[in-house]
């Protein structure tokens, strides 16, 4: 068993186009959610989202690249560049041969699908661009990251809806811990903020029309976001030997399946994943100082998640902090766990816990310290990141300060 550390992190999301800008937003409780600027927004009943703004793909990529890169792939490549540059790694020889890319996404190239369905169905066109398939496929982002950085090891995409990136990072963690790879690039990306993407979510009647207010008694649903976060997971001795800056250690991971309902969450399923991650990390429950919640802002998730945490931690549940940064960047679906891991690393490394903003009224069914509205300076030794997907698929990561 090898120890696994994080030596690079990168992101682009509604809060900003880099890690420093995103962390600044976390520290100041800044909200990235606002009116959606997408085609046919007037035909949507949900018109807000955590959209990446002031973004010009032409400033980042050339024409040939844009022909192949869906927006979710573009986000992945931007985040990967920041992460890999920070790590200082370059990949050649045996390191390249064993290093791979495991990313999470739920919808893959949703914008490409939306645009091209529109072209053939609505506009009656009988021809689409030749690269539609390689652009929309769910593994496009992982493949382009591998091509860009010469990563020739095990690479694939994990799709478990809202837990996709936590499942992906769990796989990367296992690969480095087992000795299969010394370095893995991992995280997730999503870009579903297009007419068809939002319209589909509207149908479920779980979206808020005004704000994401996790754990607040007046919460009225989730708000969708978009973006990516990518990390460099590296074997500890490899990182030390080259003098790399270590951001945090990944110490545990667990998965569970509710085997219950396709959309309603289960307290038992969530509890088993949280318990499993703590057991895998070989830490005491009382070591956990912060949990980045799944915290979607729906009635069902937030009370179930709080009940699961109360069950697992007992009296310690009242002493730990649990916040949902979805209140700021929105629910980034298959990429959300990756963006939220940034808040866990910030808590461990900088001693600042990101708040749950838009918190207005206490809910007796969510009676934990949800770090309402303002970030908090405090030392955190161990942080957990929860993700509980539709389909009842749960994945929890445990990180430790180093």
């Amino acid at each position, binding site marked *: 068993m090898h120890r696994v550390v994080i030596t690079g992190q990168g992101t682009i999301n509604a809060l900003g186009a880099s890690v420093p800008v995103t962390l600044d937003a976390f520290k100041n409780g800044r909200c990235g959610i606002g009116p959606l600027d997408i085609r046919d927004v007037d035909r949507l009943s949900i018109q807000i989202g955590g959209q990446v703004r002031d973004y010009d793909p032409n400033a980042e990529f050339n024409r040939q690249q844009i022909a192949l890169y869906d927006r979710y792939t573009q986000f992945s490549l931007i985040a990967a560049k920041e992460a890999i540059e920070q790590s200082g790694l370059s990949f050649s020889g045996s390191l390249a041969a064993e290093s791979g890319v495991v990313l999470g996404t739920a919808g893959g190239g949703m914008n490409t699908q939306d645009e091209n369905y529109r072209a053939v169905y609505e506009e009656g066109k009988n021809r689409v661009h030749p690269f539609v398939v390689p652009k929309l496929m769910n593994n496009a982002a992982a493949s382009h990251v591998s091509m860009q950085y010469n990563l020739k090891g095990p690479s694939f995409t994990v799709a478990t809806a809202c837990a996709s990136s936590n499942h992906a990072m769990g796989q990367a963690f296992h690969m480095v811990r087992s000795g299969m790879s010394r370095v893995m690039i991992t995280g997730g990306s999503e870009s579903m903020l297009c007419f068809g993407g939002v319209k589909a979510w509207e149908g*479920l*009647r779980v*979206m*808020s029309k005004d704000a994401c207010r996790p754990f607040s008694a007046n919460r*009225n*649903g989730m708000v969708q976001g978009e973006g990516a976060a990518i990390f460099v997971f590296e074997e500890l001795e490899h990182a030390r030997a080259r003098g790399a800056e270590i951001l945090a250690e990944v110490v545990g991971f667990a998965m569970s399946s509710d085997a219950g309902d396709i959309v309603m969450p289960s307290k038992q399923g969530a509890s088993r994943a949280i318990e499993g991650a703590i057991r895998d990390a070989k830490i005491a429950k009382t070591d956990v100082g912060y949990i980045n919640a799944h915290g979607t802002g729906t*009635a069902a998730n937030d009370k179930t998640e709080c009940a699961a945490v109360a069950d697992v931690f007992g009296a310690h549940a009242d002493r730990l902090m649990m916040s949902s940064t979805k209140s700021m960047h929105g629910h980034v679906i298959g990429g959300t766990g990756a963006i939220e891991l940034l808040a866990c690393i910030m808590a461990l490394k900088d001693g600042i816990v990101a708040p749950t903003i838009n918190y207005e009224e206490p809910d007796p069914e969510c009676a934990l310290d949800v770090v309402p509205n303002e970030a908090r300076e405090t030392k955190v030794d161990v942080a957990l990141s929860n993700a509980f997907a539709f389909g009842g698929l749960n994945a929890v990561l445990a990180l430790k300060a180093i």
Partner: protein
Amino acid sequence: MTTDVKTKVVEIIAEQAVLEPGDVTMDQSLEDLGIDSLGLVESIFAIEEAFDITVPFNANDPTEGDFDISSVAAIVKAVERLVAEQKA
């Protein structure tokens, strides 16, 4: 209650509950009929499609949209009101 709206709403609810329309009574709640939250969302979609109306309903707060779902009779009444308002 207009017969048309009542008949159609009962048909939709009966289909969701896997019952004959004759077995659905006005005083029953959706819970009595064994319809869960997903079944409710599906029923509301079917009602919107059948009457070409928009039902204000958020699963996070079923009371928020002023659409009373406490019994079959309440739903029929709420649909009648929406049809009258939105078709006016």
